[in-house]
Structures are given as C-alpha cells and as structure tokens.
C-alpha cells in the first residue's frame, strides 16, 4: 500500500512538474494560439465602448502585427481590401468601430505550423464574425504568417483562403468592393 501511495505521489509530482514547465516555458504553438485569441478579443468591440477605450484597443490590436504587415482581405460579398502597416490597421479598426455598433470575432480550429528554424510560423484557422445584429454570420478560412521579431511572435501577413474556389469565374468577374 505504501509503495502504491509513493508511486501515485511521484506520478502526481511529475504531472505537476510538467504542467509548471509548460506554464513557465510555453511552446511556440501555445504562445501563438494565445496571441491569436488576444487579436480576436482586440478586434471585437461592444456597442458601449468609450472613445478612449476605442483608441486604446485599436492601437493594442495593431501591436500584434509587424510594422510592414500586409493584410489582404477578400470575403465574397463582404469585403475586398488591402491594409499595409500598423497605422492602417489602427485606422481600419477605428473606422470599423464608427460604422458598426458591435463586432464579435472568434478564431476557431486553429492549426499552427512552426518552421524548422523556429523563427516563423503559419496559422490556419476559421474566422467567425458577427457584425452588430446582422443575422448573417461571416465565416472565412484565413491564413496568418508570423515571425519572431525581438522575441515576440508578430503577424507579418494575413490572407483569406478560398475554401471553395471558382478560379475561372474569379478571373472574369467584375471586382466588387465593400468598405473596410
């Protein structure tokens, strides 16, 4: 009985050690997931957000991106827009807050692939967004490229992924542009 107790104690201590290790030294995948969750939180806003909070969260959102970030958004029927650099991100975030009363953004089914040099990564996931009280849910597959810059994982490129492609059609249709 004493031996069993000792084995259980050692196993519990080992599990605690592993848990503490992962908490203190999280894997790059975990760090990137946490940062993506933070980006989704910063991109979302409630109707009752104050002016100062609005500015702060827009600037905070931009801090998750590299200075030379390139964002290509192409959601059929919704948005076709390119954003370059942090300043434009801040402006777009503020513009979104002035045009819509609320926005809820979630990043779902995140798959993170770390490059062999462990300095860059690709995150594939599904964005689920709801603008104000719009009945339609925006669902879009997206790909983020990230790089470790000054010890921080920053988003360097954002692109929408066409789960359903109609390439021949896309080449011939007239571009439709909806505001940011």
């Amino acid at each position: 009985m004493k031996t069993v107790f000792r084995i259980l104690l050692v196993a519990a201590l080992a599990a605690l050690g592993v848990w503490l290790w992962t908490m203190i030294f999280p894997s790059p995948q975990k760090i990137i997931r946490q940062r993506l969750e933070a980006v989704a939180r910063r991109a979302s806003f409630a109707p009752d957000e104050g002016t100062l909070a609005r500015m702060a969260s827009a600037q905070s959102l931009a801090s998750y991106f590299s200075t030379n970030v390139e964002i290509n958004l192409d959601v059929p029927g919704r948005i076709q827009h390119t954003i370059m650099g942090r300043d434009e991100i801040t402006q777009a975030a503020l513009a979104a807050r002035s045009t819509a009363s609320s926005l809820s953004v979630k990043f779902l089914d995140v798959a993170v692939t770390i490059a062999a040099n462990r300095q860059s990564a690709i995150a594939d996931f599904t964005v689920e967004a709801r603008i104000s009280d719009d009945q339609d849910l925006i669902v879009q597959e997206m790909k983020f490229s990230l790089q470790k810059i000054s010890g921080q994982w920053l988003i360097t490129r954002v692109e929408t992924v066409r789960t359903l492609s109609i390439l021949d059609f896309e080449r011939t249709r007239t571009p439709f542009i909806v505001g940011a």
Partner: protein
Amino acid sequence: MPAQNQTSPIPSSDQSPGWVRVVVIGRNWKLTLARLLVLVLTCFVVFRLVLLPVRVEGISMLPTYSNGSVNFVNRLAYLRHEPRRGDVVGIRLSDPSIRWPSVMYLKRIIGLPGDTVTFTNGTVLINGQALDEPYEKYSCDWDLPPVKLGPTEFFVVGDNRSMPAEFHVFGKVERDHIVGKAVL
C-alpha cells in the same frame, strides 16, 4: 416482538432520503455508474465520430434548410461510396488535421470529379447537359464560364440562388474537405 419492529413502517422523515437516493443514484450505485459511463461513451462516439450535430446559420440553403434549423452530418456516409450528385454535405473550412471542425459549410453537390460545370442564365449545365434541380425553388440568372473539375474535386452550391453570384459561397472543393452527408 422483535419481528414486529422490523416490519413496522418507517417514519416519513427517514423514507424521503431513501426514495430520493433510489431515484438519483439507483438501487445499486455501481450499476448506475456503469450505465452512466456507457451513456457518456455512446454519446461521445455517436455525436463526435458519427453524427456531428450542426445548427444552420444563414439563408444560402433555403428553402431546404432554414436559418436556425438543426441537422446532423453523417461522417460515415462516404465510407462505402464517394459523394453523389444531389447530396447535401458538410464542408470543413479548416485544415484537415482538425478532427472536429467547429464550423462547416452546408452545400449541395452538383458536380462530380471530371465534370465540367457551367451556369447559363441560371441553369446548371453538367458536361453540356442541363441538370434537373427540383430542390431549387428560387431561380437565378447566374452566368459562369465552364469550370473543369479535377479527379478529387467536387462542385458545390447552395439551393438559394436568389442573390447575385458574388454574394454566394460556392465552387470547387477538394474531397478531403467534405466531412459527411447531411442526415435530415
């Protein structure tokens, strides 16, 4: 007599906890626990591995599926055969490495691998032949140049084509993105 004491009615205050215990835990707690475990395991297997419960959001599958309706996607539907024309399928948006996708498109297959799909004034042509679509109640005027499907590609579209084509999510999808067939 001691026997009379044993058969005498138990006061109601003592009877209540016993009755509650039987209802909540059962006469044999071990058996109840085993039943509970079997139930949880069955639910997990059925609703995670076989029938994925989904709630329809949006109007792209009207009138077949309305906004807010509940359905199931059968993951085992295509174990014995490949998806067929007319099947309504769940399509993952995420990487195929994600085993249980949180979000899926619900679309109808109109084109099979190797087909050439064309929309001419709203009519779907498969390899030049008009496709009979009894499920499509809202006609459209879409025009789409011929799209040739590869050996692992299917062409999917929603039943509601009343909106302009630019506002509708449809097109070619790889086989590994098809999660299963809609049950209801």
